[in-house]
């Protein structure tokens, strides 16, 4: 039974290593730059994944491209520029602030502001509606009705 379990674990370990690309880096900074870049570039085939996460062939090609450019001593900016020249700002998960991407950046804050303002206006209106003035005569009537209720 124990032997069977070990065999089972060994089989699993094979799966864990499959699909891992082996890359050698000159220094830890370069490795950090590689990991950083691949997790900031969008895989254009499966658009909600970064090229680090994706198994698509294009993602593998783009990882290779990033790796090679780092080996050539290109900076992160150079590589990001290389990608945007070919695929547009869309390839960046962190797009630059431009007229075209303005709505993307300001949008959430604007909607939050609209939400806060409407909540503020709404609650204020409710409060004024609640404080309706009632005359002494009406108050008297309310009290007598309540007391009547108590007796029953």
């Amino acid at each position, binding site marked *: 039974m124990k032997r069977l379990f070990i065999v089972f674990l060994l089989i699993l370990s094979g799966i864990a290593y499959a699909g891992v690309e082996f890359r050698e880096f000159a220094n830890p900074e370069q490795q950090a730059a590689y990991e950083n870049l691949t997790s900031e570039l969008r895989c*254009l*085939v499966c*658009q909600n994944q970064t090229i680090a996460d994706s198994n698509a*062939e*294009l993602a593998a*090609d*783009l990882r290779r*491209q990033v790796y090679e450019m780092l080996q050539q001593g290109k900076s992160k900016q150079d590589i990001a520029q290389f990608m*945007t*020249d*070919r*695929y*547009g700002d*869309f390839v960046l998960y962190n797009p630059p602030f431009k007229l075209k991407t303005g709505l993307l950046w300001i949008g959430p804050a604007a909607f939050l502001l609209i939400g806060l303002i409407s909540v503020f206006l709404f609650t204020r209106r409710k409060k004024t509606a609640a404080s309706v003035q009632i005359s002494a005569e009406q108050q008297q009537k309310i009290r007598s009705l309540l007391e009547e209720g108590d007796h029953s």
Partner: protein
Amino acid sequence: MLKYILPLLLFIVLAVFLALGLNLHPNEIPSPLINKPAPAFSAPKLQAPEEKLSQTDLKGKVWLFNVWASWCASCRSEHPILNQLAQTKAAIIVGLNYKDEPEAAKGWLAQLGNPYDVSIMDQDGRIGIDWGVYGVPETFVIDKQGVVRYKHTGPVTPDDVQQTFLPLIANLQAEN
């Protein structure tokens, strides 16, 4: 009165946005290459690997650059339309055989017909990256000055040919 109009207005705004959203194609990424010089390449020809073709060889001509592969299913549906387009001789059609086996690619052309004046090989996908290719098929239109003027993502349909490609090519052929 406002109590009734406000929800109606909100509904209309929401409906308009949703309707617009239905007609968007988030898979089609606008190419930053439009109105830029065609990316440089020099690659072996599929049918004659000892010869190379570069984008400068096509200067002074209007040409289509169609990215295809024998493993690509939608290329197969596009293929007859390219064959028809080739018969009109409206423009030179250059194929980029993207990440494909040369033998499989040649077999594909022999079986389905060859609409390309020439196909070049991009086995490791580097030319594809330079052209911002992210899905096959893709089709670019390049003018006589070697400037990319249009990009079509996905298979070309007969309507695309009639309404977009042929008029655009005619315009570009009239340019100097």
